């Protein structure tokens, strides 16, 4: 069965420092990959996604993620974080062969705590 592993449950970091949130998935077939963000007391919002093409994808607020097929990873990075980036981040996978039900498999989540 498909699975997604987020290797860190909490990542504390100081403001303006770089950060990497790690995500690995188990799949031998093509996949679509997503990162979602959940700000306090809100639902999840899509941050970025990889469908095909360039393995480096970017969000509008400075995050980027790189699809690495050989390592089955999709790590999320930001060169300089802000206090407002404090949130929980979820990595998710959808197998490329799946039916059109749109099901996603989520990781356990990583809480990013940005300190002043």
């Amino acid at each position, binding site marked *: 069965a498909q699975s997604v592993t987020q290797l860190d449950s909490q990542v504390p970091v100081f403001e303006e420092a770089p950060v990497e949130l790690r995500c690995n998935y188990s799949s031998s077939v093509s996949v679509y990959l997503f990162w*979602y963000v959940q700000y306090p007391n809100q639902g*999840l919002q899509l941050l970025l996604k990889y*469908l095909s093409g360039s393995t480096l994808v970017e969000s509008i607020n400075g995050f980027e993620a790189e699809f690495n097929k050989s390592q089955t990873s999709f790590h999320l990075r930001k060169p300089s974080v802000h206090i407002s980036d404090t949130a929980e981040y979820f990595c998710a996978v959808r197998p*490329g062969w799946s039916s059109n039900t*749109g*099901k996603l498999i989520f990781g356990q*989540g990583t809480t990013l705590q940005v300190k002043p």
Partner: protein
Amino acid sequence: DVKVTQSSRYLVKRTGEKVFLECVQDMDHENMFWYRQDPGLGLRLIYFSYDVKMKEKGDIPEGYSVSREKKERFSLILESASTNQTSMYLCASSPPARTDTQYFGPGTRLTVL
């Protein structure tokens, strides 16, 4: 903008009560989902629906049922609430294409006493 609304942000119920959680989306999406979110476990799929009156079990359907009588509305039902169903419940919807994202509601935090 896509909007997914959930009937309550916070809900407190007693053990044994029947609980209804309502979700409505305004973008004519075919797919709708119910998840529960617990610390350290991420999101776990309870049920999903890919069309009116169509439903499939997710990973943790025990103790829950769903109803989808209209395309825009997907209800989660706890037949007899128990304390281990205390959780955050998230509803989502998506178009049918595999490349499309899911759109989430704000969540309902349910406490069962």
